[in-house]
């Protein structure tokens, strides 16, 4: 793997990890909100 390839490899991996982290954070917040609505009996 050339240095350029390695840089590209790391860039892609980092971008994917950030997207996965963002999705996980989003779902944590969503499930919290759903739980609050359900517990409150408003759903």
């Amino acid at each position, binding site marked *: 793997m050339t240095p350029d*390839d390695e840089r*590209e*490899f790391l860039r*892609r*991996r980092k*971008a*994917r990890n950030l*997207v996965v982290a963002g999705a996980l954070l989003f779902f944590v917040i*969503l499930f919290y*909100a*759903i739980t*609050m*609505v*359900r517990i409150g009996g*408003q*759903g």
Partner: protein
Amino acid sequence: MPTEWRDFFTLTKPRVMTLVIFTAICGVLAAPGSIHPVIGFTAILAIAMGAGGSAVLNMWWEADIDAGMKRTMNRPLPGGRMRREDARDFGFFLSGVSIALMGLAVGWLAAALLLGAIIYYAVIYTMWLKPRTPQNIVIGGGAGAFPPLIGWVAVTGEVTAMPLLLFAIIFFWTPPHFWALALFVQSDYAKVGIPMLPVVAGEKATRRQIMLYTLLLAPIAIAPWYIGGTGWIYGSVAVVLSVLFVVLAMPVFTRTRAETDAMTPEKTLFKFSIAYLFVLFAALVADRLAAYQGWIA
């Protein structure tokens, strides 16, 4: 080299998903009754994820076909930017999560319908009927017709005549919409052996079928108003749009392709059909909101 996250996103057919999300939102907003905004948002998200998951499974299954068509040869799988197994796993994951999310947060009837929609598109349409019958688009239209039905059921918890009519509108809208497109891109489908109607039955039969489904669509689009499910706002918009649809389908039905043909009537009908569905469903929501405000009966 790891696959770009954008390629995973591309697999979900984001352009198709805009229509899915739009019609699902319309189903949620037009349904009688109320839903908590968080639950309503979750229902739409689950529908979008389910549509995305089935689109990924469609691309996974059709990677070889996509490689043979100019329009699709640069997609992530035929373009060689992603492993097939990754696409398959991503498709199953998205589909599974969407059904679980819908069932747990919204309701299991809506989740069952979502499961049905995914199986319908990914298995019945993509794997079974698309490569076998020239009526594939009619059958495929059923998959695209699910979102407003599921959105409606997410609010009401029951399947009644109105959501079934919304389903029927998209079901009968799909053939003239897609066959108009297939008339001017037919060489691509012929190349990969997909039995699109213009390829196997010829242009004349396709033009006849476009007219037939347009004529069937018109009364179905007006029916929600006729049965009293909507007010005059939707009714008048549905009548005007449906008459226009028939008027634009007429030249497509009557003409034959010339030697050097720009296919203008077909392209016009295709573009109009997209606007038709967006405006019709927007009118449905406007009608319901006007009724809530007490502006109309």
